[in-house]
């Protein structure tokens, strides 16, 4: 039972990290940025590449990966997606982001192969014992770093000028122009930070359960569910949503069968959308209410 809780907590923390990173992009661009799945995977693989191919020490590889991924995706957004944001259909950005995801994921497959690779460089050993449960080092790392980063984002949003600008763009982009906030600059920053966080998430996940080209997509689907039920209007409820989903999934795995874990996430999402089709928080975005 304790083990179950620890596992769920770890999943929840990882999920929270990715959800927050996804939220930053969704809130500012109003697009479900599916390419984010590739961001996660790229973070993990670039770390892998730097440590394996170039023999870099792990922490330096991590830092470089995060920075490179953050800047790359910020640039990609400027080039590719900015022109699409004024489209009349809400799905244009989403579909384009799907296309980009497919391209990037296959590039990774081409370069590194479809097989699972091992990211961690430390030997496998028994975890620390807590009661009758065991916690591995990678789990501890995930929980600590995710919590720390999440707190960092909260701080950013509440107490810094950039953070307030992000919240402004998220709640009312047109108004921001009147207030002199450069929307595109804010979006650029949001994407950079979001991508950096996603890369971190990818590396953490890779340390825990190895890497393969599809790893990002799975993590992203979970996070999308968390974000929608947590409320896309702010990040306050995300931790709750993340824990709820993780508990639901792990309990299903424990008492039923692990193969239904993915379906559980989406069943929860569907149930939620039946109940509140416009998302939590009451406030909805640009959608017209029918």
């Amino acid at each position, binding site marked *: 039972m304790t083990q179950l809780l620890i596992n769920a907590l770890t999943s929840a923390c990882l999920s929270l990290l990715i959800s927050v990173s996804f939220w930053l992009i969704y809130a500012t661009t109003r697009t479900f940025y599916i390419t984010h799945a590739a961001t996660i995977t790229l973070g993990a693989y670039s770390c892998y590449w730097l440590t394996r191919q170039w023999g870099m020490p792990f922490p330096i590889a991590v830092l470089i990966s995060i920075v490179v991924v953050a800047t790359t995706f910020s640039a990609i957004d400027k080039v590719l997606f900015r022109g699409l944001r004024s489209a009349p259909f809400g799905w244009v950005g989403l579909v384009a982001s799907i296309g980009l995801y497919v391209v990037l994921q296959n590039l990774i497959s081409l370069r590194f192969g479809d097989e699972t690779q091992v990211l961690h460089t430390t030997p496998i050993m028994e975890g620390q014992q807590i009661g009758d449960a065991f916690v591995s080092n990678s789990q501890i790392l995930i929980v600590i770093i995710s919590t720390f980063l999440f707190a960092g984002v909260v701080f950013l949003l509440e107490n810094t000028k950039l953070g307030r600008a992000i919240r402004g763009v998220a709640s009312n982009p047109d108004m921001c122009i009147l207030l002199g906030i450069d929307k595109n600059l804010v979006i650029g920053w949001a994407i950079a930070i979001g991508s950096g966080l996603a890369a971190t998430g990818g590396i953490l996940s890779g340390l825990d359960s190895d890497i393969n080209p599809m790893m990002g997509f799975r993590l992203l689907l979970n996070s999308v569910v968390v974000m929608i039920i947590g409320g896309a209007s702010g990040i306050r409820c995300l931790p709750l949503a993340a824990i709820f989903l993780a508990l639901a999934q792990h309990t299903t*795995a424990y008492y039923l069968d692990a193969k239904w874990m993915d379906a559980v996430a989406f069943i929860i999402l569907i149930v939620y959308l039946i109940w509140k089709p416009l998302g939590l928080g009451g406030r909805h975005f640009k959608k017209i209410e029918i």
Partner: protein
Amino acid sequence: MNSKRLILFILILVSIAGAIIFVRQQPDLSNKESRVQIGVLFPLTGDASSYGQKGKKAIELAVDDCNAREGSAGKKVTAIFEDSKGNPKDGVSAAQKLISVDKVPAIIGDALSSVTLPVAAVAEPNKVVLISPDSSAPALTHAGKYIYRIWPSDLVEGEAAAEFAVSRGFSKAAIFHLNNDYGNAIAEIFTKHFSNDGRKVVFNSSYQDTTTDWRAIVTPLASADADVVYVAGYYKDTAAILRTATELGIKAQFIGATAIEDENFIKLAGKASEGIVYPLASGFDAASTENTDSKIFVEAFKKRFGYDPGWMEAYSYDSFMLVCKAIASSNEGVTGTQIRDYLDGMGSYHGVTGDIKFDENGDVIRGVTIKTVKDGHFVPYPNKP
């Protein structure tokens, strides 16, 4: 560009693509020498690529050896390699290409039972011989008259694993099995042979090959109180389970399947792999010098590829050589039916993996040895006193 022009543009592209395909389809008339094409279906990419790449190398050697020995009879062979990617859908697609386009009389493959079985369902009605070097699913026994394998059925492997557990005095077994034809089959056989005389399987969990969250799978094991754990899967998932179990502090004897004898297993599982026990169909041992054919093969392989061949290479080699012999023995054209007749009537074939003789179902009988991992190497399990 309005839609009419777009359609025209697309139609032109389609015609170009079609023309390219059509042109490439024409027989290569410049090559006067006619070669018999044998299809080879292996997982060349994907999670099982380690097996496939090894098999491919062995077959390359076999092609040359075959042409050197039997080629003087006027029939040279060449192998057409296709990638099954380790999944049944691509395997069936690739097999259909080999059968309809390349018109091969025989296919060597696949390395995975889960692919071999559906491919057999395609090969059989098309009268194409299918020889698998290592597929062990019991269902293959009755897969068809054109279906052969030179690895013993899992009935043997699963039994050996269960017998080992019994002989060690374990009474409560846990099973993790990969949810496919292979995993399900050996798990069932293990259960059947283990569960009597008060022994029970206390925990049985299946997992998909796409699993990423191993902790969710392995965690329930901690409270199951088993003294032996049987993992019926391939090396990647067995390694992940071992690793997770170690991190969760689970101490039990682990038994694996033959599929784990692959150096990637040690790489992925690290120290967690120490002590795992597994059965291996006997017949090939690179270090042994008793089988002279085997010795020649090992030396030739090592010279060409730079490392000692393992079971996958040896069995792939023998599979191809069997087809080679069948082709050489024919006086007329080479067809699947002719190869099948040869294999059925050939008596015993002495290959690098020992003696091969097919029974009426296209199965072989072989013994099994028990091996283990010690200090990062695969070694025979020390015999009980």
